[in-house]
């Protein structure tokens, strides 16, 4: 069962990232154009125009900072992860699900994720392995034995063995 279709997600987020850039460049150009017009065509007594420009510029700068530290970064991180996942080596292993976390603060590569704890046996010893889920998968149940395919510990797909 596929949890993440890396090809689709990579394309989706790359397109979204490009779209964000285009929107940003257009808004920036419009803002700078408007500001230039205000500076050039403001009256000789330009005090009011200057203060209005400062107020609107401050709002614009705050908007840009919010955009790049919030929505854009969310998209850029996912885009980067999926691009790497597309090219990188995937790990495949048989594990037993020990617990499925609900901790909302967990993140992987900066992307919010759900924590999965799994165990596997090697030379008669039990080892624990941490996996991450970017999307909730209700079908996964504790105690299930699965063959998990992951990249950077993020579960991409699995096959239920028992």
């Amino acid at each position, binding site marked *: 069962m596929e949890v993440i279709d890396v090809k689709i997600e990579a394309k989706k987020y790359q397109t979204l990232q490009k779209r964000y850039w285009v929107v940003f460049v257009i808004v920036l150009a419009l803002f700078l154009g408007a*500001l230039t017009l205000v*500076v*050039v065509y*403001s009256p*000789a007594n*330009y005090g009011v*125009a*200057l203060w209005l*420009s*400062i107020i609107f*510029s*401050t709002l614009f*700068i*705050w908007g840009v*900072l*919010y955009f790049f*530290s*919030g*929505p*854009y*970064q*969310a*998209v850029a991180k996912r885009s980067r992860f999926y691009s790497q996942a597309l090219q990188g080596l995937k790990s495949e292993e048989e594990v037993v699900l020990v617990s499925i976390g609900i901790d909302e603060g967990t993140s992987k590569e*900066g992307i*919010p994720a759900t924590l999965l704890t799994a165990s596997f046996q090697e030379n008669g010893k039990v080892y624990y392995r941490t996996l991450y889920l970017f999307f909730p998968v209700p079908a996964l149940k504790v105690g299930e034995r699965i063959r998990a395919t992951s990249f950077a510990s993020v579960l991409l797909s699995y096959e239920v063995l028992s």
Partner: protein
Amino acid sequence: MKEGRKFFKKNLAYDWPLYLLLPLFFSFALSYLFSIAHQPSIYEKINIFVASTSLKSEGFCKDIQNRFKDEGLKEVTTAQCNPSDKVFSEKLQVVGYESSDIFLLPRSALDGIVPGDIMLPFSSDFSSAYVIEKTPIYYVRDNVNFGIEIRPKGQASWLDAYVGFLDEDYFLCLNSTSKNIGKSGLYDNPEYDLALQSFMYLQEDGQ
């Protein structure tokens, strides 16, 4: 969107100085841009070089600026130097020749330079148009008039309120490279004549 907000809240703890510093920096930049954009053009300002012991520049400039505000004069500046200073000649040639429109000089200062290098020669047409005095006294060199006497030695003038005159005859001259002397100088721009108007005003006893 929800995820973006989470990222924003997380990053705000580190980025908050940017929210203060960038607008502050941008405000200074904007203020500078506005001041540059509204700087008077070369045709809207004049500079007067005054050779004197002292000069009440602010009052002198304001007097002229208020008189020609409606004609579009936005800025009047002065460059002042005492003729007894060692650097007088350099200042006259570097500051005065390069950026002054009008010169207010004593006879001794004019005697020390070659007026033909920079001063506007007064043709008869020019004199009839812009010299107010009916019997003017000119500063003459090689039979060419270069300046009009506005304060004879020992006599009072309305300019005494602003200028600390030396005990000499003072002449008013124009820079031939000024862009504010209409078509009288090197440039043929008859509509820009604020230096000529100020030149006439300075002869008018401040009336």
